[in-house]
């Protein structure tokens, strides 16, 4: 049994919120650089140059790289031998979001009531927390401060089992074509396969936490990731929807067993501003 003070979680979350908004992860920067090198159209090259310059400015001048500083989604892996002292874990996390967004001059992007748009909660709380118990005496926190524009282009399908891989590719490609420049391509696509209605969506978001471009451990699923990536990049949507082969930087897929009647597929669309940070306490 290990005691951890809840205030430590608050401090760590506050730091993650700021870090995620000022420092585009190096794996994303590297993928943007590779896209820039491969880009053949002038407009794609110009946009990718701007995004690389933007990431540099954000880091050096301490300006959030996008004005959408995200809705704070926190995945927690809570070691079952941890005893949390102080506040409950949700209060501790929300305290960290509040502190991080206020001290970091990050945009409060949460309205209290989805139908009454005039009441901003003012501090970007509440966070969306996904809690999972794991063996051990550590707490692992992954923050994904998710942008609204890309989240809006996400989708979920309850396909027919016999639709198979072809049906999955077709659904995703159709959605990306329809979305065009709206979600700020080049994109990172999280795909959740199997489970049920809500599990597929959660898997899709979780898949985005993986280091960029690291394939699924299962060779068959890794192949499906590559197949989806190639098909999406063949759409010609391109950076900002202005044409080109650089529509997505990576596809990350996670799967789970499912009902014999079902083939749930969820697509979580992530823009190039991938505000992801992790830490272990």
């Amino acid at each position, binding site marked *: 049994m290990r005691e951890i003070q809840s205030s430590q979680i608050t401090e760590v979350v506050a730091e993650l919120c700021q870090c995620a908004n000022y420092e585009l992860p190096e794996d994303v920067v590297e993928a943007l650089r590779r896209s820039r090198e491969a880009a053949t159209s*002038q*407009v794609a090259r*110009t*946009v990718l140059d*701007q*995004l690389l*310059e*933007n990431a540099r*400015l*954000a880091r050096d*001048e301490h*300006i*959030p*790289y*996008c*004005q*959408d*500083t995200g809705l704070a989604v926190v995945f927690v892996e809570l070691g079952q031998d941890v005893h949390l002292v102080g506040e409950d874990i949700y209060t501790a996390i929300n305290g960290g979001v509040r502190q991080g967004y206020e001290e970091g*001059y*990050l*945009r*409060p*992007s949460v309205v209290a009531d989805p139908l009454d*748009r*005039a009441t*901003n909660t*003012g501090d970007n709380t509440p966070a969306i927390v996904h809690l999972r118990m794991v063996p051990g005496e550590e707490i692992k926190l992954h923050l994904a401060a998710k942008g*609204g*524009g890309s989240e*809006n282009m996400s989708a979920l399908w309850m396909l027919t089992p016999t639709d198979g891989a072809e049906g999955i590719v077709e659904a995703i490609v159709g959605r990306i*074509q329809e979305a*065009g*420049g*709206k*979600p*700020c391509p080049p994109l990172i696509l999280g795909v959740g396969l199997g489970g049920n209605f809500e599990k597929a969506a959660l898997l899709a978001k979780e898949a985005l936490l993986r280091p960029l471009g690291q394939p699924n451990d299962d060779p068959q699923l890794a192949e499906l990731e590559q197949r989806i990536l190639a098909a999406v990049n063949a759409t*010609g*949507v*391109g950076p*900002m*929807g*202005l*044409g080109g082969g650089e529509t997505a930087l990576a596809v990350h897929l996670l799967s789970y067993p499912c009902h014999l009647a079902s083939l749930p597929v969820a697509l979580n669309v992530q*823009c*190039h*501003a991938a505000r992801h940070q992790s830490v272990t306490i």
Partner: protein
Amino acid sequence: MPSESEARQIRLPLTADVIVQLRAGDSVRLSGAIYTARDAAHQRLISALEAGQQLPIDLAGSVIYYCGPTPAPSERVIGAAGPTTSSRMDTFAPRLYAAGVQATIGKGQRALQVRQACRKHGCLYLIATGGAGALLSLFITQAQVVGYADLGPEAIRKLTVAEFPVLVGYDAHGGSIFAGDEDLD
């Protein structure tokens, strides 16, 4: 986007003779005053227009930027200030073009009626690079809340911009920068 040397410098407000010369895909640098307004502000502007009430800004000849910036630290004019997805304002845009708005700035494709409204009223839809909020903030030299302050990040702000980089998304002739957009006729 063509290389920077080809970008056309435009001083705001936009005039009809300048608008008519611009074509989808043209690279443009804007200098002058623009207003931010996004979802909630649009809803209020339209309600006020319908009710015949006074608006917080004069729409005639204006440029609307779909943007909700991050808060500005004391040493800066504004925080990150890139464009949000334009299509959410599609139902409002034709009404605002009819009321005198000369151009909107955002990101991504829009509904057909917006392109039609641009042609009908001789207006423009301009695009800025989405997710380049830090970079774009450097082209903003002044910012002031001028309406609906209670909306926080969604308040209407008057921005003074200097050589703010945009592309012509939809021109006043029915043209579109987006691949897959068909001819209007």
